[in-house]
């Protein structure tokens, strides 16, 4: 949970969850965006 940072404490270099690198996480987000656009397009076409 919450932990106050002490002065001079080195920056934590944590990895993102689910994937191995931040680049993969960014790719995941772009993929999610593409998926949403496709889903919304399908939604529009199905209900119009």
């Amino acid at each position, binding site marked *: 949970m*919450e932990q106050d940072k002490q002065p001079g404490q080195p920056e934590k270099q944590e990895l993102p969850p689910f994937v191995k690198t931040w680049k993969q996480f960014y790719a995941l987000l772009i993929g999610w965006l593409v998926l949403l656009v496709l889903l919304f397009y399908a939604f*529009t076409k199905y209900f*119009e």
Partner: protein
Amino acid sequence: MSVIDWVVLILTLVVIVVYGIYKSRGTHNIQGYLLGNQSLPWYHVSLSVMATQASAITFLSAPGLAYSSGMSFVQFYLGLPLAMIVLCITFVPIFHRLKVYTAYEYLEQRFDLKTRALTAFLFLIQRGLSTGITIYAPSIILSTILDINTTYTTLFIGSLVVCYTVYGGTKAVSYTQMLQMSIIFCGLFAAGVMVVHLLPADIGFGRAISIAGKMGRANAIDFKLDLNNQYTVWTGLIGGFFLQLSYFGTDQSQVGRYLSGASISQSRLGLLMNGLVKIPMQFLILLIGVLVFTFYQYNRPPIFFNSFELNKLEKSKYAPELSVIKADFEKAFEEKQVVVEQMNVALEQDDQAMINAHRKTLQVADEKEKSIRTKVTDLMVKNDEHANTKDNNYIFLSFVTQYLPQGLIGLLIAIIFLASMGSTASALNSLASTTVIDIYKRLIKKDASDHQYLQASRIATVFWGVICIVMALYASKIGNLLEAVNILGSYVYGTILGVFLVAFYVRHVNGRAVFFAALAAEMLVIVIGQLELVAYLWLNVIGCMLVVVFSVIIQKLLRKQRITIQ
């Protein structure tokens, strides 16, 4: 509102404020007050960022917008995930490593003091004015719904926010926002479930959207390249990207949120989660508006949703004309109801030919209803040229107060208060940070103790709180102040983003060049804006581009001048 609703409303607000104050106790230094000791986990950052962006108007306007023109507004947010990625790659690591309190502090390290002071000053003016509107806009709506004078709702929202923001600083803002967002999600989910529940027995969730879709309300995506259309995939991806990047990257009210993350990773994760959740969240809010639209195909809607303006017209000399229009509206609604039922049967039988035929009839009926409503607004303007003829913000609240059960009404009114408080608290905190760190500490009193800076931050929060409340009270006297503030934002945002982009990506440009470039760009933007050469939203892009181009040119000229002198 019933007693139960008042109890729910007051209890929700009290619990949130007490929780925020309790969780932020023990804030004794400036780092804790302005950055929450950079101790907050990613989910805090994410919810805080969302609560800062989502003002009360977001929850009022979006369902109303879906009701009137469909779901195309969701495309406005398509650029947001891309902006989050750029922020995570560039802005977040730099701000964290340099351990800055404000975004403008970085500009002194990269350029010089005058560039920092200029951007901080532009931010203070823009944010200081717009925060007044953040308080005022929901106040006027709530005063209409609750039948209380705007002054009281404005003073209530404003002073409540000032109290916990002054006491607990960033931590109080973040903790209250986390709880606020949780209540907002629960309240909106309950409202969505209730709308479906209130529909006729044979109309399920899917059928409700189908009926609305046949009347053009399920238009979530539009791939057409149309420059005059505000909401398409392309305007969302390109225009939205620039807008979100400038907002999240250079507006201290957002920068302050993600700088409170425990590490670069926690801040990054908070922003990326915002990128994951924001678009589906907006989609669901719009979907509630679509469901409300279908609900009103089976239940006669008011001819105008702002009851205050309608009552005014009913008491005027135009009352007889209004009665005639109302009769027309009722007749048109009854005719439309028959076609809606026929459409339902056609959908049940999956009869494509009938669906197509009824779709056209329904669209004509929908247009007829809109034109009748226009007659009412025309009459309103005749009666009072300052009348508020837009009722989008009142559609969802009108439905809530008329049809939802006791208790839920109180909760949903609380949501409007909470959303307003969340974005106002962030704004006050960021205004205090910028005033103390970029102006007071840097230009006025350089060697004060940590305690003195903490006290100065609290005084600055109160100062800006008072300014914003006064602005909100004054806003009721000026009709188009909301638009004026939006225009002012567009005058400023582009220039500030341009300075940051030069700082990050055009490494050879120095402080002198970018400062004069920013001044020249700002002056040109003001001239272009005053001459109304383009729609004001384009000023963001123009300001940003001008700073980048001017910086490079001025840098070259300065280098040539130096060579000549040598």
